[in-house]
Every structure is written in C-alpha cells, then in structure tokens.
C-alpha cells in the first residue's frame, strides 16, 4: 500500500512550520536530525503504514521559518508541543532522531505524563560519559553526514552525488544547530536531572558504530529514564533510520504497537 503524504504549514509561536503527515492510528511525532531531513524516507513510509505520522521541520530547518529569538532545543520542544496541541494530538508518542531525540527528551521532561511512548535514536542532549559528540563545525558539509554512516555506500544510497541544494540545506541546518546548541555543543547540563520524572516507556536505539554520538550517551539515557530499554543495531551509524530503515522501523513499530 503506497503512503500518501500531505504537506501543510502550521503557524506556531509566530513561525510558519512545515509539517508532513501520513497514515492513521495513534499519532507519532517524528523529530529530525541536526542535518535536517529529506522529504520522504522508506523509514517514514514504514511508520505511516501503522500510525498517524507527523513530521515537522524544526524552526529554521528545511522549509520551516527561522525564529530569530530561538536559543535552545528546549524552545524547539515547546514549539512542537504547541504543534501537537494545535493538531489535536497532545498525547502522541515521540520518536526523535539524533538531535531530534534531544528535542523529544526535552518535551518528555517538561511534560512527564503527557506522551504515550518515547523512542530515541542516537539521541544528542546528554554529555556522553565517555567520548564527545562529534563537532560538525570543523569538518566539511559532506564529511559530517558521511561520518554518520557505518557504510559509505549507505550514504551514497541516500544522498547520491549530493546536490548543491542539499549542501545549502546542510549549511543552513548547521547554522541553526549553532544558533541553538553551540555551547555546550549538542547537550544540556540540566536535562539528565529532569528525565527521572518521565512516565512514558522509552526505547533507546543506537547504531553500534555511531561515530557522532557515542553509545555511552545512550547508556546514560537508559539510566536516567525510569522505564527504558537500550537496543543496538549492528553495522549501523548515527543516521540509523537511513542506514538500516527496516531494522529501526521493526523495533520502533513493535515497541509503539505494544
């Protein structure tokens, strides 16, 4: 069955937010990476076959308008919580990819009883107990996303020869990452202390070769969240939903269907 996506613009906090939506059933809010997202992915289609999937572009990323005042991923979390209220789906499950995982964790920490379930894939947001989150500021536009794949062929399969439009989108995404998460880079010093109240069961998925966010951060999430399971995917990098879409979809759908 082919999935039909609808793109709309929602006005939240004075920002025009680009939102893609498809499928039916319980709502799952998907929050994208620091490098933004392409419009359609096999992983998104797989989710939409089972759920009502909502995928906004973060403010300033992709087709969403920039919020000049935005300074922290917690601000993005508030915007997406507002979006869910606007869409009439305040009790959605949250599925955060990388940087989007940080935003999802912020949302959950701010509203501990509100969200049904939480899926974090290679989530940023916590200072890894071992190693550092890779700094995209000092590497080129292609080098950074490529380092998020275990297998270079998977990068090529997703991005091909990389269009100039894509390079530009990555530069804008990078600028936005700096605007909201420059220092400390890609983590919050307060978030780990606030996760203990989260009532939603959590599934934490990590590529076993994530060179952008060390697995130790996943272990820290599993420890901080009261009801969490950590699962790793073999031969997989940071952009797990693009490198191993079937495996991530299977794990997420199984968890969210329970």
């Amino acid at each position: 069955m082919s999935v039909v996506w609808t793109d709309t613009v929602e006005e939240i906090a004075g920002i025009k937010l680009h939102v893609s939506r498809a499928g039916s059933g319980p709502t799952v809010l998907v929050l994208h990476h620091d490098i933004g997202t392409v419009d359609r992915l096999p992983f998104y289609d797989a989710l939409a076959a089972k759920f009502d999937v909502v995928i906004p572009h973060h403010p300033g990323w992709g087709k969403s308008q920039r919020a000049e005042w935005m300074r922290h991923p917690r601000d993005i979390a508030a915007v997406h919580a507002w979006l869910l209220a606007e869409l009439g789906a305040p009790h959605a499950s949250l599925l955060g990819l990388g940087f989007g995982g940080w935003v999802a964790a912020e949302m959950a920490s701010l509203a501990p009883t509100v969200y049904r379930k939480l899926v974090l894939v290679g989530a940023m947001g916590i200072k890894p107990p071992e190693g550092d989150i890779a700094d995209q500021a000092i590497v080129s536009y292609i080098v950074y996303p490529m380092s998020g794949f275990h297998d270079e062929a998977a990068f090529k399969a997703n991005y091909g020869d990389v269009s100039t439009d894509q390079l530009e989108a990555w530069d804008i995404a990078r600028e936005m990452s700096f605007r909201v998460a420059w220092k400390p880079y890609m983590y919050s010093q307060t978030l780990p202390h606030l996760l203990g109240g989260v009532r939603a069961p959590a599934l934490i998925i990590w590529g076993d070769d994530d060179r952008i966010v060390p697995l130790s951060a996943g272990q820290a999430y599993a420890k901080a969240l009261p009801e969490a399971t950590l699962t790793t995917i073999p031969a997989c990098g940071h952009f797990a939903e693009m490198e191993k879409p079937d495996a991530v979809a299977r794990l997420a759908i199984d968890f969210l269907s329970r």
Partner: protein
Amino acid sequence: MHMMYFTEQPMAAYDAKAGLDFGATALNFSNSHFDPNEGSRLYNEYLEEYILAEECGADGIMLNEHHNAPFCMQARTNMFGAILAAVTKRVKIVFLGNPLPLTENPVQLAEELAMIDMISKGRVVSGFVRGGGQEQLANGVNPAFNRERFIEAHDLVQKTWTVPGPFRWEGTHYQQRVVNPWAIPMQKPYPRVWIPGVLSKETVIWTAQQRYPYIALNTSIEATKTIHETYDKAAADAGYTAGPENFGYLIRVHVQDTEEKALQNARQFMWMQGEFTGLANPVWANPAGYFSPSGRRGFVEFAVGRAKNPRGNPTFEQQVADTMIIAGTPDQVIERLKYLVRETRPGIMGIWGNDGTVSKEDRRRCIQLLCGEVMPAIKEYAAGLGLNDPWEANAPVHLRYSTDIPGLRQAAE
C-alpha cells in the same frame, strides 16, 4: 595622509613540511610546532622594529590579532598596544583591530583601550573587526551571532566611552549590571575608530553609516573602487559626502636597496597565502552563519571542492603585475605607490612591510627605507592630491558629531 607600518608578526620558525603534510596551518595545526624560544626572540625583534619604524618617521603602527596560526603571533592586540604606549613617543597606535564578537565583556575591552589611550597620552586609534571565522572557533564564540555581537559590542563600548556611568546594559548578547569603569579615554569624544575589511558589503555600509573610515585590506584596485562606491552611497544616504579621510588602504610593500633582493623577499608574502604553508579548511574560515547568506550557494560549492575560491588564487607575478604586491628599490616602490594612491585616493595607508621568513637584517633595512624614504615621498604626493587623513580633514569621530549635516542633532563632545 596618515602612513603606518604593519606586519602580521609571522611565526615562521616552524617546520614548514609539517604544515604541508597536515594540509593546513590554521586552527587545528598543532601548537606542538610552536617553539616559545623562537617566539620570545621574534616578539622582541618585532618590538624593536616598531620602535625603529617610529624613529624612521612612520605616522602609526598598525596592530592586529589572530589565533591558532603561525602567520600572526599576536593573540591579543591590546598587549602590544600597551607596550607600544609606553615605549614609543609619537606614533599613533592603530588597532585594526580588536575582534569585538570574541569578547564576552565589551566593558573590559573599553577599559583596556582607555588605559592604553591614557598611557600613550592620546595616541590610540581603536579599530574593530568581526574576526575571521577560525577566530570564532578558536575562541569558542558562536559564529552565527558574529555580526549581531559586533554591532552590540560596538554600541556598548561607544556608550561606555561617552555616557557617564553608572548605567545598566540589557542587550541581546550582552547584559551588564553596572557599567561604570573608572578608566575612560583621554581623547574626546572618544578615540578614532577605523574599520578594516576585505569584502563584506554589509560591513562597508555599516561603517559608512557610522562615518568611520573603512580600511580596505589589500583588495584589488577594482574591488577597492567598488568598496568606495558602496561607501559613498551609504554616506550620501546618511547625509554627508565621503572624502579621502573616510578611506584607508593596506598594501603589501617590500623595499630593499636592490630590486632583486626586494623581489626575493617579497615572495614571502605568498607564505601567508598558503603557497608554501598549506591552507585552512574553508569551513574553518567561514563557519555556518558567519558568512552573508547571499554568498551561501557559491561558498558551499567552494567548501566541498566543486568551485574555485571566490577570492581567486593569483600567483606572485600576477599580484606584482596587478599592484597587489609592490617590491623594489625606494624609487621603484614610490612610483608604483603613486599610481595606487592616484587610483584609490585613500587618506590613510597601511604598509605591510615584512612577512614570512625575511631575515632580521632585511626587515630592518626595509623599515628604514620604507619609513625614511618612501613614506615622506608618498605623503608629499598625497598632499598635492588633497588626500587628507581624518586629523587633517578634522573629520568627526562619529556621524553623531557631524557639523555638516542639516537636521542632525549633534551630540555633545
């Protein structure tokens, strides 16, 4: 015309092959290649050379700063400024400049500059810059807010210098409970501010709106004329007519007693341009958000190696032919500089005299000839062309002190 001597203070005493092997000599090129004994020698030699430049007749010493790179040993321009305030007697101490966005405390910067102004008995010219991209990275400063921080820090420094304290500052990037430094500048209303730059149109326009002189850093004659056009238009919009006192120009010039030796040493100017050092990674020089969004598309292609550097990469010979580098005997250099001065009509000139591994003896000879023979000849020629510097033109320090703009409520000095 104001003529000042400049050197980047190169730290060329490192293993050049290591830089080439690493592929870059900035930001991440390890400081394990830095030898502090050589650093000590060079700092002291450069200091002696500034003193020599004053003895030989320079009007000013131009200072700057960079970080994490061998091409410039000054990590804090105010350090050398403070030393020069004490050991020189006459020259202007021209900071071009303090990178405003790098500071977390503009009030402290205002204090430091005020101290240097007093110690030097009113000889400070306080230029400000945005700082290159890698300077932001080297200092952990967010490049995405570079321009906002530049403007807000400037406004805070200006207020600190001109409005009696205490006052409170609640800005976007800076918040200060009590602004009330006891050190304030000796020069009134405040030390002259000059803004150096290379290509940012936004900076040229902002500079013209302040009525600060814009110092073009070794831009081509053609690019320099474009900068003047942009400035002239913004000046006209602000209600005044820009003159030579609003423009400065920095040019690489190396002088020796023979043309052969001058050309040989001038090749060292290519050292900093990467011909024999290795270049920086483009995303270090222009981190996301640092660059004007209008240049984004061209830049991302350059950054991944699909397009050539928009600034070009001309050879030494080409740069000599285009008057981007001047080298020769005093007579030869004077002739070329006269051509340049006629074409670009600046009231302020910076002469970048030495770079790379030029020997101490040759550096000193270059300074003697530059400041003793070339500068007086060019100053005389410029006077004939009416190229006045800001003091000769009695130019206002800032637009708000203009007396020639109808309807402008003039600020009290």
